[in-house]
């Protein structure tokens, strides 16, 4: 969370101030790594812009001890390229810390590099649990929650709505497969039934065959583990083939693109995302205002706020202990009850942000609305009946 005066400073002529106060201070380099090209580049660009925004604001603030420079690198969402750019950043001693990775496979491939070179990083978007839990690297932190928390809540919530019969579609990337795994687990715990599971490739266009099968199974809910592009296609084709069921997605479809892509069809889609509902937090509104003020080409997308939070977390640590990788690392490790635009951040013993709450979202009138304040919760509108 940003101190008030800084906010005012930022609101007025952020950039000029940045220019003015520059020179004087010692420069500190941060790195952002994410997919800036290829299929999921939308999220990567959103994250980069958010990080860039955080840096700009920080530099604009009079309080800042250092002048921060952002080096952003493209991992193309390919593990081998990821290792390449991670090495580039980690081997560059002038870079103190990083805000890294949206694609889980890439994060999996790069954690070793960060550990080997002792570069403290904060993962801002990749959701695979193993990234933090399959190793014990003091360098690797994560502000966004894992798919575990997400699906735990999702399963409990949905069964709470008296739904019993699911069909699961997931893309065959680690993201989709992971979600399928954990959701199935928790759904079983909560007594929901899965009638059929369908893995599909991430670049698939036509789902009529799968959906025809699903239609036969007559599920009450179609659970989709995957990202926006596929989500849009599947939801559209459900309608085309007359599959009448609730569409329950994951954090992957929590994006403006999802709603833009579907138009009215998006109404009533459910999704879950770690972190407090942004609009609820004072910082959240501020973030969105500032982001829009910068006139970036691309929206922040679901994880922009996390990148923003991660960047600020890192910079606060540096402000506190100075631009030294070791010190910054242990400072980050110590993070407790840190107030950010995505809510309180507290790292567990695996430096995983034990996200206290999962936000339940539903599309209402072309917006992602927090479930509790939606007409659906109030009973004014109905999802497809169980």
């Amino acid at each position, binding site marked *: 969370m940003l101190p008030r005066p800084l906010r005012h400073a930022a609101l007025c002529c952020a950039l000029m101030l940045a220019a003015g106060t520059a020179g004087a201070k010692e420069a500190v380099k941060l790195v952002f790594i994410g997919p*800036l090209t290829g299929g999921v580049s939308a999220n990567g660009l959103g994250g980069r812009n958010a990080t860039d925004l955080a840096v700009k604001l920080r530099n604009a603030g009079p309080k800042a001890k250092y002048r921060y420079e952002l080096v952003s690198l493209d991992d193309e969402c390919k593990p*081998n390229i990821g290792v390449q750019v991670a090495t580039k950043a980690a081997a560059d001693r002038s870079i103190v810390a990083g805000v890294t990775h949206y694609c889980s496979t890439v994060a*999996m491939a790069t954690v070793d590099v960060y550990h080997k070179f002792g570069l403290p990083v904060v993962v801002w978007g990749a959701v695979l649990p193993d990234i933090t839990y399959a190793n014990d690297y003091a360098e690797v932190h994560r502000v966004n929650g894992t798919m575990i928390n997400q699906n735990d809540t999702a399963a409990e919530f949905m069964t709470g709505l008296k739904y019993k019969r699911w069909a699961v579609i997931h893309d065959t990337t680690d993201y989709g*497969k992971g979600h399928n795994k954990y959701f199935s687990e928790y759904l079983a715990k909560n007594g929901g039934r899965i009638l059929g599971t369908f893995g599909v490739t991430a670049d698939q266009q036509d789902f009529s065959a799968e959906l025809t099968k699903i239609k036969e199974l007559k599920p009450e809910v179609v659970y989709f583990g995957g990202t926006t592009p596929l989500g849009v296609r599947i939801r559209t084709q459900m309608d085309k083939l007359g599959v009448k069921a609730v569409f329950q997605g994951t954090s992957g479809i929590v994006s403006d693109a999802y709603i833009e892509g579907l138009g009215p069809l998006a109404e009533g889609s459910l999704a879950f995302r770690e972190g407090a509902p942004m609009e609820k937090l004072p910082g959240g509104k501020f973030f969105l205002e500032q982001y829009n003020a910068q006139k970036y080409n691309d929206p922040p997308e679901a994880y922009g706020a996390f990148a923003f939070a991660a960047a600020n977390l890192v910079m606060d640590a540096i402000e506190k202990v100075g631009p030294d990788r070791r010190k910054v690392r242990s400072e980050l490790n110590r993070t407790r009850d840190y107030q950010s635009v995505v809510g309180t951040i507290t790292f567990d013993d695996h430096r995983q942000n034990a996200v206290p709450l999962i936000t339940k979202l539903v599309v209402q009138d072309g917006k992602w609305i927090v479930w509790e304040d939606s007409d659906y919760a109030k009973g004014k509108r109905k999802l497809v009946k169980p």
Partner: protein
Amino acid sequence: MNARVTQRPALWPAFVATAAVASFAYLFLRAEAQWEVAALAAGAVVALLVLGRTRLGAVVGSAWGARPTPLAWGALLAALVVVALFAEDHFALLMIATVLLYGVACLGLTIQFGYAGVVNFSGAAFFGVGGYTAAVLATHTALPHLLVVAVGGVLAGAIGSLLVLPLLRTRGHYAALITVAFAILFKTFLEVNDTLGGPQGLKVPGMRMLGWSFNDNILVGEDVELSFYLSYAVFSLLLLAGALVLVRRLERSWLGLSLDAVRIDETAASVFGFEVARWKILAFTLGNVLAGVAGAVYAMMTGFVAPASFTIAESLILVSIVILGGVGNPVGVLAATALVVVLPEKLQVIQEYRFLLFSGFVILVLLFRPEGLLPRKLRQYLPGWGRA
């Protein structure tokens, strides 16, 4: 006349050229600022044009033709010097090793496509076979890693032989489709099927040889710490040198002649007794073996394999390297590899616009230099061959 040479051309121009190339490579890898990169790129273009226009190129070329052995050693030495200069720079070494290993793979494609004319759009897949072999064997067996690398190559060759039958029956675009199909099939299968880590991929242990672990930095005295990538860079360099010698000798022998005959005119070749199938199989398998070996080392270096790294897009990159470099010319292929691997990296500054520019660049090359950067020359069976 006799195939031996009577008056030997001077060597020094060639040595100077080698030195120039080496120092260029050094500067280019060092370059960070946009203007530096731009300047160096421009310089390279100019140099190429000059070489093309003036006799300089011919002089250097004839020197290489006449007395390759000393020059080859010189080149190897120069490469080692460059590597040594980066001894502490992890990233530069990683890039160098990457270039070298991709180079090995592309030499494999050169044998297949450049000589035998068997186009292969699943090069990355065979690269991947090597990588996955390394991942599995190095994790679950105590096999010495040199052997693991070898097995990676062999397996790539073996899996390649699955495609041999359809490849032999088809030609041109029909053959191309088979490899395209295989590339897609391979990646999708790895992703859907969890036995090999699925989309998450597998971790690969670092290489160890004779008790020497490649993944530890090398301490010289107390304060100097050399990058652990140094070991990989040197190993890859030796690997590449080996592959280069192999390809050269292959081309400068009856084998090379046979492959050319089969590529240029299958019908005529069969009328003159060539066993077309035999030669195609030889080239295809040999090529895949090289790709597999390179893939195995690469996987151990990056410590990770995942289907996403072995898509058809990657295969197409390999093919474009071979064509850019000059089909059938190993040296050209190496130059192109360096270009294709390093340039996008150097273009990181322009972020999301990289590929747009890169593809534009390739288009220009194809339009204005269709035979590639360094077109292949006539076969020289022996040093100093063919001077009447």
